[in-house]
């Protein structure tokens, strides 16, 4: 299987506080990979480091074979077009309608004509489960669940092969959360996506993840198939997965 992301000896430090002391894991093409762990273990930090929002203190991260710690501006821009990121709060541009939010990268990066762009946007809006008339609403006019869906549609606007999700189901009601899980699975199959996800939601973890890495106390305490991880003897894993749901 092709490695899409390869993290080697990742080391992160904020001031005197060491967050990661040598993380090693890789993510294969087409899988849904989870980065799990207790609060404050630096899950989101790993995600931010992968999408070049945060500098590493040491080690390297390769995405599509490209080392993101040592990359030229142009290559970085090119790489950014090949992934989509869904932020925890959606991070939709509040001054633009959903339509404009989704169409923005298409308008900036491609030479497609208006009609085709509007059809592409309509398709994206449809696959994430929004209604066409929602397209002309502003982010302040829609609910949290819709914001997540719209943000997902925006993340998918350039047909990326790689999708980063930061707590995709947080802030959603259980029904919407399950719907969102199904949506992620559907999109993975439909668009052949590789998905990297940080999550706390046990149900979502069981339902969607293929493989996962668990970060605890600065290192990866377990990684691999979810079933193998659950049976491991580690205090965090035991409390985390054995919690009643």
């Amino acid at each position, binding site marked *: 299987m092709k490695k899409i992301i390869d993290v080697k000896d990742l080391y992160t430090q904020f001031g005197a506080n060491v967050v990661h002391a040598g993380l090693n894991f890789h993510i294969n093409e087409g899988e849904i990979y989870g980065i799990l762990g207790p609060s404050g273990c630096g899950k989101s930090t790993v995600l931010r480091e992968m999408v070049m929002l945060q500098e590493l203190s040491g080690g390297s991260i390769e995405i599509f074979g490209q080392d993101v710690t040592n990359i030229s501006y142009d290559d970085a821009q090119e790489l950014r077009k090949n992934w989509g990121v869904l932020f925890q709060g959606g991070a939709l541009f509040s001054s633009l309608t959903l339509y404009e939010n989704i169409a923005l990268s298409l308008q900036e*990066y491609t030479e497609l004509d208006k009609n085709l762009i509007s059809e592409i946007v309509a398709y994206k809006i449809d696959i994430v489960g929004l209604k066409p008339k929602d397209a*002309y609403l502003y982010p302040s006019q829609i609910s949290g669940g819709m914001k997540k869906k719209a943000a997902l549609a925006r993340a998918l606007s350039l047909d990326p092969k790689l999708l980063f999700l930061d707590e995709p189901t947080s802030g959603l009601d259980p029904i919407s959360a399950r719907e969102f899980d199904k949506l992620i699975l559907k999109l993975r199959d439909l668009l052949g996506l590789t998905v990297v996800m940080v999550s706390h939601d046990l149900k979502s973890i069981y339902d969607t993840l293929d493989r996962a890495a668990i970060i605890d106390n600065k290192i990866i305490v377990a990684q691999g198939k979810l079933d193998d991880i659950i049976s491991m003897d580690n205090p965090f894993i035991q409390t985390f997965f054995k919690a009643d749901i």
Partner: protein
Amino acid sequence: MLSKKKLSFTSSFANNRLDFSLTGEINLYTLVSFEKELESKLRNGSELSLNLDDITSIDSASAIYINKLEQTFVEKQLAFSLTCKNEQVLNTLKTVHVMHLDLEEFGYKQPSFLEKLGEDAILRMKKFVEFLSFFGQISYGFFYLFKHLRSLRYKEIFFEINENAIKAFGIVALTSFLVGVVMAYQSSVQLKIYGANIFIVDMLGISIFRELAPLLTAIVIAGRSGSSFTAQIGAMKITEELDAMRTMGFDPIAFLVIPRIIALMLMMPLLIFVSDVTGLLGGMLVANLDLGISTSLFLDRLNEVVAAKHFFVGIAKGPFFAFLIASIGIFRGLLVKDDTQSIGINTTKSVVESIFAVIVCDAVFSIIFTNVGI
């Protein structure tokens, strides 16, 4: 490595049918070249046979385009055929469906001029009524707090005094000093012509005490504190801090609004006093250098010709200006809606409106004072 695979085409035309085959990767970026090439080769009324056997990958945008192409051919009742060996490409083509987004369908109409005018007028009226209600809330808050002096937020008041007045002394002093210098310098040219050098004192004394110092201070404070009130409270509204405060029983009027208003109202006279002093200092400096009026002569003359009432009139305007600046700044902050642009718009408006309100208030004062003979 990410390689940018190019898309290449071959085509042949026979029996009113275009055979068009593509090789490579068809995606958002290569789609345009495909579109152009096809258009240039396609003749009116000809049939199309698309060969995608050598396509390695396709994305949803291109799939939408090809589906749309098929639709237009079907509509024109022209033959359209598509061959493709690649399972994945076929799958993508199948899963994608053409959707239309029609602006007019959702009642998205451009309003007419009259509609806009009416809407605007009603909006403005509503804002004014809202401001009146806000004014009522503040007044109620004040009365309530005077009855329950213990619940007045002294800590916040002193914090705001430091933030909005003590830290503003420097800039108020500097601005006033410079205006004093400019005023004196400009008028000295005229006064010299008539040999009326000494009248610089009358002119500067009255204009700075009565008008310039209060207005200048108000403008600086409106730009400094009015805008920061709007931005702070607007950001608090976006992050739902205000709602959180309300649910916890911390009335935003008592916690955020009244301390800011009291702080500015208390400190404005002091700021105007600083402005008076530094403005005159600037004037005195120019009078000394340019007109040969010594400091002691300047001060003697000031004492002689400028009545104390001018000074007190200027100082007395302070609390009123302060109230206008603080209340408009906070009111605008509370009007911020749930998006980031709204903070910018409201901050701009708060500064413009508070300066305007201060000037109107000043005009009203001057009419009143003239009529009562002060």
